[in-house]
């Protein structure tokens, strides 16, 4: 297993989405954890085929939105009713009605930042380097190629068995990726 310490993983190429989906199901059923599917666009049904759970981005959006709304309401109340009270046209110093439009906009603003940064955080992006990006064929992933990569650090990984599993999926091409 000396070679696997230098290798990042094993990569298998697929030519269409159907064979990729069925191969992913096989890898999932074999119980691998540190593996991934790489596609030029999100493939419908792949999350189930990989056994992924629902994404957690929504929590970031939710927290962002609640923060935005609270910030808006508290800010306007404090600024217009506490720190700098000014009577304008006999209107109340604070009312949730006039504070609503800016708070509503801040809900959306903070929620949007929550979604984008939540997505980047969960995906560990930006990432300046990835072993796969050095791999010759892998550049095709943004063009028209589909790949399955099983990392060598997966506890179930074995150089011969894993390769055999991928061969059974009918991939036309298997290769090792260096770290």
């Amino acid at each position: 297993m000396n070679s696997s310490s230098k290798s990042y993983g094993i990569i298998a190429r697929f030519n269409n989405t159907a064979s990729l989906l069925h191969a992913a199901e096989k890898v999932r059923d074999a119980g691998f954890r540190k593996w991934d599917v790489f596609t030029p666009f999100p493939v419908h049904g792949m999350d189930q085929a990989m056994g992924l759970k629902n994404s957690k981005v929504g929590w970031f959006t939710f927290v962002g939105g609640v923060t935005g709304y609270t910030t808006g309401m508290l800010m306007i109340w404090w600024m217009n009713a506490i720190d700098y009270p000014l009577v304008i046209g006999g209107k109340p110093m604070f009312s949730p009605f006039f504070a609503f439009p800016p708070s509503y906009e801040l809900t959306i603003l903070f929620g949007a930042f929550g979604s984008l940064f939540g997505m980047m955080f969960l995906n560990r992006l930006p990432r300046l380097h990835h072993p796969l990006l050095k791999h010759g064929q892998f550049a095709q992933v943004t063009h028209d190629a589909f790949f399955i990569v099983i990392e060598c650090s997966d506890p179930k990984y074995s150089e011969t068995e894993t390769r055999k599993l991928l061969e059974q999926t009918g991939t036309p091409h298997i290769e090792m990726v260096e770290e």
Partner: protein
Amino acid sequence: MAANVTPITVPEPPRELRRIPLVSNYHSFGWISDRVAGLTEGKTPVWWWILFVPSVSLLGLLLFMLSYQISTGVGVWGNMHPVMWGWDIINFVWWIGIGHAGTLISAILFLLRQKWRTAVNRAAEAMTIFAVMCAGIYPALHVGRMWYDWWLFPIPNTYTMWPQFRSPLMWDVFAVSTYFTVSLLFWYMGLIPDLAVLRDRSKTKVRQFMYGLFSLGWTGSNRHWSNYEKAYLLLAGLSTPLVLSVHSIVSLDFAVSQLPGWHTTIFPPYFVAGAIFSGFGMVLTLLIPIRSIFKLQDLITMRHIDIMCKVTLATGTIVGYAYAMEFFIAWYSGNPSERFHFINRALGPYWWGWMLMVGCNVVVPQLFWFKWFRQNLVAVFILSIVVNVGMWFERFVIIVIGLHRDFLPSSWGYFSPSIVDMLTYLGTFGLFFTMFLLFLRFLPMIAISEVKGVIPQADPHHPMGGAKVHDVIHEKE
């Protein structure tokens, strides 16, 4: 086993149930990358320079006019008592209205699962961002002493005072700045996978570095796609109430005042419909020539044009309904000031503005009922410009006719724009087209990965995606 060998024939759906494919001629994934990313590669075409040089010159004109206005004062504009809001606010509302189609296409049509949006959303979102940039110039400068603009934001200052949030103008500050920021985030997020496409195709070090930097190290991992799609859905869900709120809040700048013709509850929905109407007009104006120049007929098909014409027709008709309803309520309310305003709108000294508004926004778009017009690119192009002329006059009618004759006949007046007004407006086109041409040259103008996702090959349950007929039948059971 013998049963499996017998070929299973799937009956073709009847002709009326067959769908026109979103990408014509069954192109491959690679073709889409090559076609769209190829537009940003190679030598800059001559036509690009032919358009870019005048655009930059107009941008220079804009900067000159703005410097002149800042150094001299708002008096260089035609705004004069009693019309204290002139071309500045007309152009602000006009540009920001145009900006509404982008977010409508990218957010609302995404939630409604309108897959045709994938071919036009990128360009429409770019249009939104650039239009909001043009719009933002006006409120920033019309305050007169624009070096105090920062007072509009809740920034602690030595005077220990704060913005006054009871004013709808403050709501507008929040609405427009949020709209710009969220549209930019949405646009950028959609660009990440496509910037990775450009990165992987780059031949030069500069392109590799720039696209590599902005694509954030995107690998197309499905674990990433899973979070990405959720975030995209959430951003669409957030942008939908946003796009509806922005022009509503812009309309509240008017509706919260006590002025006849402005003080109406119909304004928010009426402004939103008008904004989408003008936005689709601008999308058509931009995409029809681009489609021909870039030879993108297989991606932006006649069906796309047809659907956008129908949206224009629908929103234009809503706007027409709003015009009629304003007149009805003016009569029905029995308010003499309100009645006078609407009679003055149609028959007063600015009758021509009102006629142009109704003609361009309500009458002419009715031609889109006919398929011949929707399929004729020259006719659609001309009509799309007519729509935006009409929408400009709508804002002119609301603002200028609303202000020029108020309650006291002694203070009536007649507004005419100054040359600075006109040249500044012309200059904003320079900003818009400079930005748009740079976008066409350096960024993928069609969402590559999204279009790949809607062609039949992308569907693992479709025979073109490699599914065997046996599997398809099996999975349906």
